[in-house]
C-alpha cells in the first residue's frame, strides 16, 4: 500500500500538457496519473511495437454500441509477457464512413507509428492498460529514440506520495532508459519478498 500523505514538490507535477509544451490533442477524460508500478503490474504484456494496420467498426459492448478500432501491432520487443509476433489491440473510438467517434483519454495508435505499449488482456480483447496512459509514442530525435505521450491523454490529475506517475518517468526518456525502468519494476516485487 502506498503512503500518500507526503506531497511531492510542485515541479514533479508539471505535465506534458503544461503551458511549457502546450496542450496535445483534444481530450475530455479526467484521470488520475498512474504509476509505472501500477502500469506494469496491471498489464499482461508490455511491448515495443509498430502499428501495421487498423480497422474501425461498430460493435455492441456491455456498455452500448460504439465505434471501436482494432489495430494490429507487429511486436518488435516484448518486455513483459509473451504476446507473440503480432497482437490486435482494441481501442474505443474511430471513424466508420462519415461518422467519427472520439472517446476522450483513449490511446490513439496511428498505423506506421512505433510505440511502447502496456497491454491488458480481457476476456474479449487486448486493450491498452489505463487507456492513453499506457501508450507512449517512440519518436527519434537526433538518432535517439525517446518517448512521447499518447496524443489524447485527457485531463490528468497529478498523484502524490513516494510513487511518481509513469508519465513523469517515461515521457522524454530514451527508450532504453524506459525499458530499464520497467525491468526494475518487474524485479522489485521479487526483491521485496
Amino acid at each position, binding site marked *: 500500500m502506498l503512503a*500518500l*500523505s507526503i*506531497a*511531492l514538490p*510542485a515541479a514533479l*507535477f508539471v*505535465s506534458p*500538457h*503544461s*503551458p511549457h509544451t*502546450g*496542450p*496535445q*490533442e*483534444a*481530450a*475530455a*477524460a*479526467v*484521470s*488520475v496519473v*498512474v504509476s509505472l508500478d*501500477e502500469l506494469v503490474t*496491471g498489464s499482461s504484456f508490455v511491448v515495443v511495437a509498430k502499428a501495421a494496420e487498423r480497422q474501425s467498426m461498430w460493435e455492441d*459492448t456491455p*456498455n*452500448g*454500441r*460504439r*465505434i471501436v478500432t482494432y489495430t494490429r501491432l507487429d511486436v518488435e520487443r516484448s518486455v513483459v509477457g509473451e504476446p507473440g509476433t503480432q497482437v490486435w489491440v482494441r481501442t*474505443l*473510438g*474511430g*471513424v466508420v464512413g*462519415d*461518422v*467519427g*467517434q*472520439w*472517446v*476522450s*483519454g483513449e490511446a*490513439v495508435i*496511428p498505423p506506421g507509428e512505433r510505440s511502447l505499449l502496456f497491454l491488458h488482456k480481457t476476456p474479449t480483447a487486448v*486493450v*491498452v*492498460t*489505463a*487507456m492513453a*496512459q*499506457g501508450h507512449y509514442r517512440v519518436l527519434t530525435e537526433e538518432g535517439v529514440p525517446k518517448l512521447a505521450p499518447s496524443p*489524447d491523454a*485527457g*485531463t*490528468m*490529475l*497529478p*498523484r*502524490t*506520495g513516494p510513487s511518481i506517475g509513469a508519465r513523469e518517468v517515461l515521457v522524454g526518456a530514451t527508450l532504453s532508459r524506459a525499458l530499464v525502468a520497467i525491468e526494475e519494476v518487474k524485479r522489485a516485487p521479487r526483491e521485496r519478498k
Partner: protein
Amino acid sequence: MHHVNASNRGRFAPIAAGLSLVAATLLLAPTASAYCRTTSCKGIGTGARCTPVRPTDCGVELFWKSPCVGFSMQKDASVQIDLDDATQIFVDSFKKWTDADCGDGKHPRIKVVNLGPVECKAHEYNKKAGNANVILFHDDVWPHAGAGSTLALTTVTYNVDTGEIYDADMELNGANVEFTTGIDNVLYDLPSIATHETGHFLGLSHSADGTATMFADYMPGSTELGSLENDDIEGICAAYPPGDPIPASCDPTPRRGFESQCNPPEITPEDGSCCTTAPGAPRSAGGSALAALALALGLAAKRRAERTRP
C-alpha cells in the same frame, strides 16, 4: 449533499488530501490566451485548432449545428448523488458556458436544455433511431480500461466532413471515485469536473492557459474550475458567436428524435427515407422532447412536494 462516502472509493481520497497542499500554487500557472476547439482531422482522427495557432492544428471544428441542444441525466443518477442534485449541477455547468459575457451584454448563441431523465444506462449513438445526450454514473463497475484511474469520460460522435456534433455522452466513475459537491473537505469536486466536461461537450478542447477551466490538468481538492476564466469565455464566444436571439421555438431534440430507451427500433418512415433527413432533424418535430421536458418538470415538482411533506 456535500460529501459522499463509499468504502471502495478510498483509493483516490489520500491523493486528493495531499495534493490540496500544492493545488493553490499550481493553479497560479502562467496565463495566456490559448483556447482550443476540438476538430475532425480527416485521415487522422480527432485534433484541435487553437488561438493562437499551433503547428499541430488541423481539421474542421466540432460544433452543435442547432443553437439549442438537449441533454439528459440517466434516471438512477448515483448512490453518491441523487437525480435532482446531479441534474442541477450539470444545468448550472452548462449555464456557465451559455451565459458567458461575450461583450456588450451578448452571450454565445447556444442554449442547452435539460430534456429530463432517461432510462438507458449506456453510451449510445443510434444512426437510424432516436438518441439522447446522456450523462450517467457507473456505480458498480467501471466498464472501460482504467477503472482505477479514470474519473469521467466523454464520447463525442460527429460528422467527419463537417464537424457537426451528432451526440455527446458523459460517463462518471462512481464505482471508484468519491465525488464531493460542497466547498468543505473537497475531494473530486463534481461541479468543477462537470464544468470542464461540459466545455468539451460544447466542442472546446484543452487550453494552454493554466488558469482556464479548460486547462488540461485539474487539481484534486480544488473548486477553481467551477468558474470560467477569460480564456474559456473567449473560446465559447468564438465557437458560438453572439447573434440573433434564439427563438423560443428552437428545438433541442437530439438527432433522429429523443429516445429514453437503449437500443430503440430503427426509424422506418413511410417514404422509406430514413436517415437521409438533414442532420439534427427531429423524429417527431420536437414533440417527444417537449413531452420529456414536461415529464421532467412534473417529476421535479413531485419531488419538491415530497420533500416538503412532514
